[in-house]
């Protein structure tokens, strides 16, 4: 498979490290001068940008977390004036403060290049018809891969998410050869194809590039067989940029190459916050090396993985990360959307003025995630009149669906049900099969 930027993706490791250090020093100077919260944190630790003389020195720098985004909402972490910003994306959620990210013209250029790498590594060339079934909008998935596909010179169908039957008709009639979406949606497409009586031989699909949620090797095999394609994984997070941070190659389909020329990665012990050696599992921490609008220093992704360098059959020298095996916080990903239990809590509080106990139950039915929120029928939301009771449930349903950005089914339950089946502190019950993978690692 062609490599989109062999000069960087196959760079000798020692040269790559020189490039990383040069870029790290530069980004540190920029944030120290232009981003108040960073300057403040570094001053508190008595560190000046010039004190960082090697890549190893990065361990002396303070971490950045999602809280920094909240405290500096919306634009406080930006390193350039708004006139330089050409694009804004953000996390979903109307309760709590969403995470807002900005891009300069050059950032978009970098992002397109990186998603072009992702697509190339997954088999896409200028001859392909790329069917992008990620949502377009504030979510970074759709737009991120869109521009990469155009950059490669492929024909892009920006079909966005939803309306599966129509998607299948388009794939069939327009001759889509590469499918870009979440892995669970790919399986859902396979399911709907079966219902419609459409055989994979009627489609021209060859490649699938999937991301935005965790998935297993068995899901990969199932997708590949049912759609007749080769499937690769890619990883990214909107705070850091969006898709394009790391990607599998078709040759190995094992481990995701991290775009090290743009991102410096570490794995830390989430408890002690100490750096861990390569090969050990811990929390992924990313420092952006080239971003202009929103540079991040030691951003704690909360994703658990390991990083390791090995000679890859594709020829890339970039370090690899394992498929993320879980989270260090309570975030869950439902249909590609990030959800925190605290969002549910805030939404319930807003509606009823009280915060009843609740449990989020996620299941996968017909390969689509289903989100249920079980709410304790406490006094404030319990009515003697059936009409009022139903109105209250509808109100909670609507509010949660709005706040979480995912269709939510609300069930009112007896207090005992929550205590019996979940124990006290548990907020999330995840019944999806990829969890079995989590437990192994």
């Amino acid at each position, binding site marked *: 498979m062609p490599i989109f930027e062999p000069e960087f993706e196959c760079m000798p490791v020692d040269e790559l490290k020189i490039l990383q250090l040069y870029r790290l020093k530069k980004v540190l100077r920029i944030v120290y001068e232009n981003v108040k919260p960073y300057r403040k944190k570094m001053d508190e630790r008595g560190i000046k940008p010039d004190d960082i003389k090697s890549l190893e020195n990065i361990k002396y720098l303070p971490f950045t977390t999602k809280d920094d985004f909240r405290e500096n909402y919306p634009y406080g972490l930006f390193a350039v004036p708004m006139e330089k910003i050409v694009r804004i994306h953000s996390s979903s959620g109307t309760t709590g403060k969403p995470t807002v990210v900005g891009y300069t013209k050059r950032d978009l250029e970098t992002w397109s290049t990186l998603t072009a790498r992702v697509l190339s590594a997954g088999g896409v060339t200028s001859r392909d018809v790329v069917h992008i079934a990620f949502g377009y909008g504030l979510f970074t998935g759709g737009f991120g891969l869109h521009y990469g596909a155009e950059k490669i010179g492929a024909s892009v169908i920006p079909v966005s998410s939803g309306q599966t039957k129509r998607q299948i008709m388009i794939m069939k009639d327009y001759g889509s050869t590469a499918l870009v979406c979440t892995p669970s949606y790919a399986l859902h497409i396979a399911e709907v194809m079966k219902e419609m009586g459409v055989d994979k031989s009627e489609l021209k699909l060859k490649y699938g590039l999937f991301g935005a949620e965790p998935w297993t090797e068995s899901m990969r095999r199932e997708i590949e067989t049912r759609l007749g394609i080769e499937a690769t994984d890619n990883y990214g997070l909107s705070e850091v940029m969006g898709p394009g941070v790391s990607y599998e190659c078709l040759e190995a389909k094992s481990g995701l190459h991290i775009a090290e020329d743009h991102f410096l990665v570490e794995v830390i012990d989430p408890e002690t916050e100490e750096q861990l050696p390569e090969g050990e599992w811990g929390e992924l921490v990313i420092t952006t090396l080239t971003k202009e609008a929103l540079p991040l220093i030691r951003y704690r992704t909360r994703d658990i993985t390991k990083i390791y360098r090995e000679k890859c059959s594709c020829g890339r020298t970039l370090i690899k990360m394992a498929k993320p095996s879980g989270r260090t916080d309570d975030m869950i990903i439902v249909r590609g959307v990030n959800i925190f239990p605290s969002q549910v809590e805030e939404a319930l509080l807003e509606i009823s003025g009280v915060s009843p106990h609740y449990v989020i139950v996620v299941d996968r039915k017909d390969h689509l995630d289903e989100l249920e929120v079980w709410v*304790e029928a406490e*006094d404030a939301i319990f009515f003697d009149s*059936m009409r009022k009771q139903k109105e209250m449930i509808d109100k909670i349903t609507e509010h949660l669906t709005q706040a979480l950005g995912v269709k939510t089914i609300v069930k009112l339950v*007896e*207090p*005992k*049900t929550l205590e019996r089946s979940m124990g006290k502190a548990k907020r999330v019950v995840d019944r999806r099969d990829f969890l079995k993978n989590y437990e192994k690692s």
Partner: protein
Amino acid sequence: MKVEQLSVFLENKAGRLAEVAKILGDNGINIRALSLADTTDFGILRLIVNDNEKAKEVLKDERFTVKITEVIAVEVDDRPGGLASILLPLSEEGINVEYMYAFVEKSKNKAVLVFKFDDLDKAIEVLRKNNVKILTNEEIKQL
């Protein structure tokens, strides 16, 4: 003259009603009347018992969601047309029934109708005007 009833939230699954009945029975509480409104997921159980406060307490102890709510109980002759004679004047006044349930008194050949109206106070006024016998909390406990 409103009377008190208990409203209990129940999940729509086997054994829930039985559990409520057992808890009340074990605590020596006698059920005078009950009705159950249900959906596929949950139900609302409404009960008239001889000791509301105690019933509420023992059910709360067993972690049920319980509320004491107000309804109107009226006594009518147990004969054809008894219910209609009560409802007609109310509907003429634009008062709606949210729900109702009924039971027959063993000793007196009378029926007791329990109503939840959208406007309880106005309903009482209309019922009084029509000389309907409205029961008090004390009376209903002694049935």
